């Protein structure tokens, strides 16, 4: 499990859970971070007033932490995008940011593209059992008003994926190999622990000493054996599922006709692009003159081929987006959730991305110091891959 090196290097301690209320104990810990001025503000998912979903909220007054849910079972927006907005100019004090593993990895990728600045940010990564579609969660709550956010932690300790009221996690979550954050400043661990009794708190790197002092934490080296076992089990299971999903998809896209068939219901709404944390360009090529054609041009094309599809350029759109971001794709699946035509964009990127990432020996979001593959090169490499002798 080389990808998880960062986790092992952290020191850890146990937070006791009071009255089996895991979320409350977590809120209490977050409250202490705020009250002690360790962080000035906190970005954390908060329950919507109607109770049917969660949104990231920037909290300045610790009393507003009520209803905050750091382990929210939905991901309405990729928080790396929020973080990009939030850190676009200098500010005083530190902000604590609660991030799911894929959000944290996306944030690290965005640091490389100079779209996120983590200097004054304390990243608080949380274990993620998986997330539901926003709409599914709302339906579940509608059907069962008694359903409490705490109930969603059931099975989280074992990292189990079981359908609830017929709803399952988003597909990208079911095939996600990163249920634990790779390298947050603070990590909140659920996997392998009885969360009705205790939660794992890990700290590493730049804030380790300050945290230990301020909150008189006894940070110890190493990870609990059971946690490691559970992480291993979950990762293994999801990897198997991932191979299955990707193999099925491979059959569906392995030649251009099938590839186009798979994407044929794309309506070119650009939703996948708009929600993607890696698609960050302010001046996107698809909104540029390159794709703005003269009326006559359309008519000429139609004349030449008898008829053309409008809007066109679907293949070019997806291929370009792929070549731009497949190497950095963290597999958060926001593109899938945003697609009105239910296209398997995320697994398609997973399929192509994982091969490219392997070719460049690159794990997106592993380390902010690692350069993205297309911005660096080696003198002597890729002779065969590029097809040059």
């Amino acid at each position, binding site marked *: 499990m080389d990808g998880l090196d960062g986790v092992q290097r952290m020191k850890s301690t146990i937070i006791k859970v009071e009255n089996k209320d895991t979320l409350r104990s977590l809120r209490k810990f977050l409250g202490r971070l705020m009250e002690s001025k360790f962080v000035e503000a906190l970005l954390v998912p908060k329950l919507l007033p109607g109770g049917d979903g969660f949104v990231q909220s920037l909290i300045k007054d610790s009393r507003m932490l009520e209803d905050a849910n750091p382990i929210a079972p939905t991901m309405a927006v990729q928080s790396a995008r929020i973080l990009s907005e939030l850190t676009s100019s200098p500010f005083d004090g530190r902000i604590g940011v609660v991030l799911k593993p894929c959000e944290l990895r996306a944030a690290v990728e965005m640091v490389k593209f100079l779209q996120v600045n983590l200097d004054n940010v304390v990243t608080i990564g949380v274990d993620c059992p998986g997330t539901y579609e926003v709409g599914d969660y709302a339906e579940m709550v509608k059907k069962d008003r008694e359903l409490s956010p705490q109930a969603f932690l059931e099975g989280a300790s074992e990292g189990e994926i079981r359908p609830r009221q017929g709803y399952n996690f988003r597909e990208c979550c079911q095939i996600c190999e990163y249920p634990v954050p790779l390298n947050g400043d603070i990590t909140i661990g659920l996997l392998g622990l009885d969360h009705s009794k205790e939660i794992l708190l890990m700290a590493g790197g730049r804030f380790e000493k300050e945290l230990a002092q301020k909150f008189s934490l006894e940070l110890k080296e190493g990870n609990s054996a059971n946690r490691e076992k559970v992480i291993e089990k979950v990762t293994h299971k999801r990897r198997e599922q991932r191979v299955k999903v990707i193999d099925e998809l491979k059959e569906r896209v392995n030649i251009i006709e099938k590839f186009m068939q798979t994407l044929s219901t794309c309506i070119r709404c650009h939703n996948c692009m708009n929600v993607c944390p890696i698609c960050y360009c302010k001046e996107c090529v698809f909104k540029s003159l390159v794709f703005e054609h003269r009326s006559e041009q359309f008519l000429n094309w139609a004349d030449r*081929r008898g008829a053309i599809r409008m809007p066109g350029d679907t293949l070019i759109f997806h291929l370009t987006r792929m070549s731009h971001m497949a190497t950095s794709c963290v597999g958060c699946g926001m593109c899938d959730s945003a697609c009105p035509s239910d296209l398997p964009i995320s697994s398609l990127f997973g399929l192509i991305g994982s091969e490219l990432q392997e070719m460049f020996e690159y794990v997106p979001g592993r380390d902010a110091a690692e350069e993205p593959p297309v911005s660096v090169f080696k003198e002597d*490499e890729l002779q065969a891959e590029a097809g040059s002798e």
Partner: protein
Amino acid sequence: MNKTVDNWEPKIVAFLCNWCSYAGADLAGVSRLQYPPNLRVIRVPCSGRINPLYIVKALQQGVDGVLVSGCHPGDCHYISGNLVARRKFALLKNFLAYLGIEPERVQFSWVSASEGSRFAALIEKVVDEVKELGPAKKLVKKGL
């Protein structure tokens, strides 16, 4: 419109960098070396200037093969443009393979300004390989 296979000649777009490969092609010309006339040369400042999109677009517009040629590694006029290009092409080739585009259709090579004969030999090789594959239809835009 309908080309018969017997007299079909492939159309190949060659993106040549200004400093090495274009000069190499020039040298082949002034040295009166013979090579197949299937190329449509597009001169670019550097192989690093080529957007992978151009290659896909060329295939969509009906060319049968694409050749990209720049300076040898270490010889780039802009120091490392060709090495950045190599990474981009490795990436593009990877997903063209998924689309069932034969690797011989999109080729990447290095030719220096002094390698006129190498250029001629390269073109012969590329044209032969693309001829072998036949017309490229996969990416060509069709109706809907």
